[in-house]
């Protein structure tokens, strides 16, 4: 039996919404070696009714390239059978999708850790910035990076 082909991650940076279930199905369907599928969906919260929207600015080109570099690390670190990452940009209302990570593997720990790892590094290395828009109509300004995200990312070193 030939070695399995290296996993190519699917990476998309887009303003349109995504269908998490569809993306998860693509990694599982027609295969019998996938034992674990972990799907992370990050959604926009209204912060206790305060927010009307988040606006996500990104660095086109670098966003895709940086996510690809993080995904490559995940694929070399865990025995994945598939990996999909989608990050939206533009104005996103509370309750709507922001980011999707789907990790598929024969083994549950690999799928969990790879998805967790991807999210930690998307937060701290992918060039996206969030601006808050308030229900009152004002712009609240830019969301500040949180130290706890850096600490989460350090867990993997």
């Amino acid at each position, binding site marked *: 039996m030939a070695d399995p082909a290296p996993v190519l991650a699917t990476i998309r940076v887009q303003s349109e919404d995504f269908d998490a279930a569809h993306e998860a199905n693509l990694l599982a369907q027609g295969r019998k070696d996938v034992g674990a599928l972990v799907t992370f969906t990050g959604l926009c919260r209204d912060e206790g009714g305060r927010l009307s929207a988040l606006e996500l*600015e990104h660095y086109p080109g670098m966003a895709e390239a940086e996510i690809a570099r993080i995904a490559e690390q995940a694929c070399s670190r865990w025995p994945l059978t598939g990996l999909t990452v989608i990050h939206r940009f533009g104005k996103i209302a509370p309750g709507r999708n922001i*980011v999707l990570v789907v990790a598929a593997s024969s083994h549950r720990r690999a799928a969990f850790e790879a998805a967790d790892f991807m999210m930690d590094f998307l937060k701290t290395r992918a060039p996206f*910035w969030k601006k808050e828009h308030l229900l009152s109509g004002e712009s609240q300004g830019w969301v500040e990076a949180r130290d706890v995200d850096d600490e989460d990312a350090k867990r993997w070193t």
Partner: protein
Amino acid sequence: MKIRYFAWVREKVGVDEETLDLPESVTTVAHLISFLKASDERYAMAFEEQDAIRVALDQMHVEHDEPLGVTQEVAFFPPMTGG
């Protein structure tokens, strides 16, 4: 050299991107920041908390002591808050 700005760095500098001719003495990211700060108040404001500013050379994260080398595109931005 093409220079791009994002998020509040962009707002403070006042432009998305610009192309600048740099003196030969500007050989690192840190030199470039000093050069910009000295050139106009807008940059001085944008780079006031200099340690907080992140930099990419040709779309790769680097530290402030990185040589500019043959870089075509420099980008300055605040810590990322995606995900």
